[in-house]
């Protein structure tokens, strides 16, 4: 805790490690407010004369002070509601304070006819304000909790379109463009017409298309969210603006989704490691993002530790569909294995053309040599 000259000491038997936390004041969403309360309470204790705290004692006291505020609010709200009001009043608050101070007592508590205005509680507080020093809070507190902007649903009304048909209300989300589902229908008609004997194949294709579509949607949604939030977590990850519905339907073994721009360091690593797809520049296809998963499977068979380590530390794919990719690529995996050595040698030759980063080239060649050697074993 940073609070000027105060130090915090923690004794071993203090139960500050695991406490069963109640949802109201111990949940994760309340951490920020509790932290502010801790700072304020620490400042107050310092003004009283303490020079240090036990962490558990500070946490306990801040928790109690927060509950004090909460109970004042609750009692005040109760008395306001009893009086038929929604908004609170100064009298409601004084009632709440009297309730809380009743077990310790305040002057005039036993009077039957007392008025709230002349309550002893207020006098005590007035006296306190007059006596105590002015201690401003140590930090600048922003207004919280921050209100999130509601996302637009893309309704007919928002887009300014007229919904086709009177039975559709305008607050519903708009239909996608008609071209998108027109082509799909035609493709499905074709498959239906051709395959009476090839039913299983068309079903497979349909299933795979659905998987691809869901993959697509998910990645788009990620890119969309990152675009909106502008998060630094995904800095460098930018989805190119292409309408996925206009793209040709995918076939088995191929995956072309909207490209993702990686930061140059990551993109180089990914480009280096992928034996099947190589894109010049920063664009990376989905297969590349799944490259670590594919590599992991390959390395599981080849037993190369370096590649594994590198995968674990450096790579961060945007979408994790390891199981799906595993199932899919099992069919293609056997093919890759036989061509493994050739591909790895191919990569080495490719990087002869890369003029830019020599260190990475040397590192890559080392890794490739090691993996080739291990695969030979």
């Amino acid at each position, binding site marked *: 805790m940073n609070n000027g000259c105060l130090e915090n000491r923690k004794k071993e038997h203090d139960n500050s490690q695991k406490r069963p936390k109640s949802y109201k004041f111990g949940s994760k969403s309340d951490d920020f407010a509790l932290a*502010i309360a801790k700072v304020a309470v620490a400042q107050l204790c310092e003004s*009283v004369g303490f020079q240090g705290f036990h962490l558990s004692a500070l946490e306990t006291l801040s928790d109690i002070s927060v509950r004090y505020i909460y109970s004042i609010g609750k009692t005040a709200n109760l008395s306001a509601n009893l009086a038929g009001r929604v908004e609170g009043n100064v009298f409601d*608050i004084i009632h709440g304070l009297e309730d809380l101070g009743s077990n310790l007592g305040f002057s005039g508590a036993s009077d039957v006819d007392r008025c709230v205005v002349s309550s002893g509680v207020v006098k005590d507080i007035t006296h306190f304000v007059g006596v105590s020093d002015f201690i401003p809070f140590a930090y600048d507190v922003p207004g919280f909790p921050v209100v999130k902007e509601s996302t637009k649903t893309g309704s007919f009304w928002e887009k300014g379109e007229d919904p086709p048909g009177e039975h559709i209300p305008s607050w519903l989300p708009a239909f996608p463009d008609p071209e998108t589902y027109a082509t799909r229908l035609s493709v499905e008609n074709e498959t239906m017409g051709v395959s009476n004997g090839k039913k299983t194949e068309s079903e497979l294709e349909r299933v795979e298309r659905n998987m691809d579509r869901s993959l697509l949607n998910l990645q788009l949604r990620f890119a969309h969210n990152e675009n909106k939030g502008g998060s630094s977590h995904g800095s460098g990850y930018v989805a190119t603006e292409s309408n996925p519905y206009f793209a040709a339907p995918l076939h088995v073994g191929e995956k072309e989704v909207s490209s993702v721009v990686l930061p140059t360091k990551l993109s180089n690593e990914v480009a280096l490691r992928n034996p099947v797809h190589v894109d010049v520049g920063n664009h990376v296809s989905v297969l590349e993002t799944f490259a670590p998963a594919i590599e992991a499977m390959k390395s599981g068979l080849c037993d190369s530790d370096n590649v594994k380590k590198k995968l674990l530390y450096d790579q961060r794919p945007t979408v994790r569909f390891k199981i799906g990719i595993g199932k899919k690529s099992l069919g293609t995996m056997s093919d890759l294995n036989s061509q493994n050595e050739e591909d790895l040698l191919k990569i080495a030759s490719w990087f002869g053309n890369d003029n830019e980063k020599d260190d990475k080239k040397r590192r890559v060649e080392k890794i490739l040599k090691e993996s080739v050697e291990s695969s030979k074993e």
Partner: protein
Amino acid sequence: MNHNRQSNDGKHDDDSALSDFLASLMDYTPTIPDELVEHYLAKSGFQCPDVRLIRLVAVATQKFVAEVANDALQHCKARQAAVVKDKREKQQKDKRLILTMDDLSKSLLEYGVNVKQQEYFADSPLTGIDPATRDEVRIMLLLC
């Protein structure tokens, strides 16, 4: 009649005292920030557009915390004074006043808040036994 008039005057004084006090609150910024108090009042359902009331709650809480801390300080000083009678060295060392759970729980007890702590924690039934008997007990447990 006279009594009523006097009580009315008294009420006016009290009213003005209260309104003056609320006005003075705007000059005095309490240590507990307004945003924090607003957050917890909103959590409890108390709605109020008036800033002065929030300041009032903040000042009341500050007073409460200051009183509790004061009582804990008295306990701490009393304990140090009791120890000083034994050794003079401790007085020079323990000049630092530290808020401990013991003092805090004693002072909170007067305010009706019961904060109790375990005196010690034992990981297993064998903790705290001397090693010789511990081995015996362990062997006995294994045999059973």
